């Protein structure tokens, strides 16, 4: 939970800088709530659910996605005028795959335990539809700085949702937060952990309820 708060603070400080006009602030803040990639645009759900059994791998995953997202947007936006339209998807995928390989090799070298936990799901960042979706919809047609802001907004919008899902799944499924047994610390030794939340089903249901809560709050109705 703490990381989520920290990330939100960073966003709040940024608009104070002068080079952020009102339009740019909107690009940055929109994907956090009103146009959230997961809960409104329905993108990137696969990895959102697969890694959220525990909070710690989710944090690593969020950081990786933010990194890949920002740099792939920057690179795509810089070379957007030189990419032939017909082969653009392969070019975009090559950019993303290169960055994901970097992340994967970095994890292998510096945090092998985490690499084993995340396994194939680091590689699957390539197929996170948020990244390709934003490259295709935004970075291909906009200037580098705007694209980076858009990428930052979208990836942080993604990160906060998966962190909330992971928090509840770990709390209810394993009775802990970041590995600390909260309920035992509070003196509740017989807390009934629910195996359903460790399983995929708990993830679907928590995300469904989270989407319900968020949409009720911001009044978005899908037909």
């Amino acid at each position, binding site marked *: 939970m703490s990381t989520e708060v920290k990330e939100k603070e960073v966003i709040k400080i940024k608009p104070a800088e002068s080079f952020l006009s009102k339009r740019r602030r909107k690009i940055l803040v929109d994907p956090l709530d009103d146009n959230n990639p997961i*809960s409104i645009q*329905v*993108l*990137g*759900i*696969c*990895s*959102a*659910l*697969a890694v959220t059994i525990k909070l710690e791998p989710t944090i690593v995953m969020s950081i990786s996605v933010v990194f890949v997202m920002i740099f792939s947007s920057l690179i795509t936006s810089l070379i957007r005028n030189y990419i032939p339209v017909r082969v653009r*998807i*392969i070019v975009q*995928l*090559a950019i993303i*795959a*290169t960055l*994901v*390989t970097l992340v*994967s*090799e970095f994890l292998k070298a510096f945090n092998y335990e985490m690499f084993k936990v995340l*396994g*194939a799901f680091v*590689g*699957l960042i*390539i*197929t*996170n*539809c948020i990244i*390709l*979706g934003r490259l295709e919809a935004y970075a291909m047609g906009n200037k580098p700085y705007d694209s980076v802001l858009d990428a930052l907004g979208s990836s942080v919008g993604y990160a906060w949702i998966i962190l909330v899902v992971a928090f509840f799944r770990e709390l209810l499924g394993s009775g802990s937060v970041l590995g600390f047994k909260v309920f035992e610390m509070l003196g509740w030794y017989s807390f009934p952990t629910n195996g359903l939340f460790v*399983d*995929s*089903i*708990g*993830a*679907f*249901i928590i*995300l*469904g*309820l989270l*989407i*319900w*809560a*968020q*949409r*009720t709050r911001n009044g*978005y*109705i*899908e*037909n």
Partner: protein
Amino acid sequence: MTELFNLVIKSAFMDNMIFAYFLGMCSFLAVSKKVSTANGLGLAVIFVLTCTAPLNWLIQKKILDEGALSWISSDFTDIDLTFLQLLMFIAVIASFVQLVEMIIEKFSPALYGSLGIFLPLIAVNCSILGGSLFMVQRDFNIQEATAFGFGSGLGFWLAIVALAAIREKLKYSHVPDGLKGLGITMLLTGLMGLAFKTFIGMTL
């Protein structure tokens, strides 16, 4: 032969891409509003998965693995190209998807129109890359890889058509405003996942 058949059943039902690994969720949720469209996408996924799994297997075993290049010349025995795995796999998948896109555009413009942006997005359908990565992790041989690809695709097709059928009926029920669309679909998927869990007890 029975082993291959068992593998198909196992990857379609027990290790279902969607309910066990959450792979391919994006298109699963977004293209499941109508049965006919869902059916088209499901069949495209079966085709792409069945073809890319053995292709990527060949690439992994004949090019990428440590010492795999020794069939060209004995000088290459200590070359390890596994770091190129992601790049190679995604290139194969993207080219295949482009091929499928051309075929569908030619033979069924109506389906092409209704799939829209989700057709090129099959390239980033996690279940396809995931199929290739799992196949390498589990050390299959080439027949097993093909059977696994086909079974996984079959599981995806089953799941997406079933969900689309439920969602078509959902039009006639009163769902709370905030839960409409994605919210209720997530809850439905959870319940369907619960049903698919019953296959786990089966031993083949």
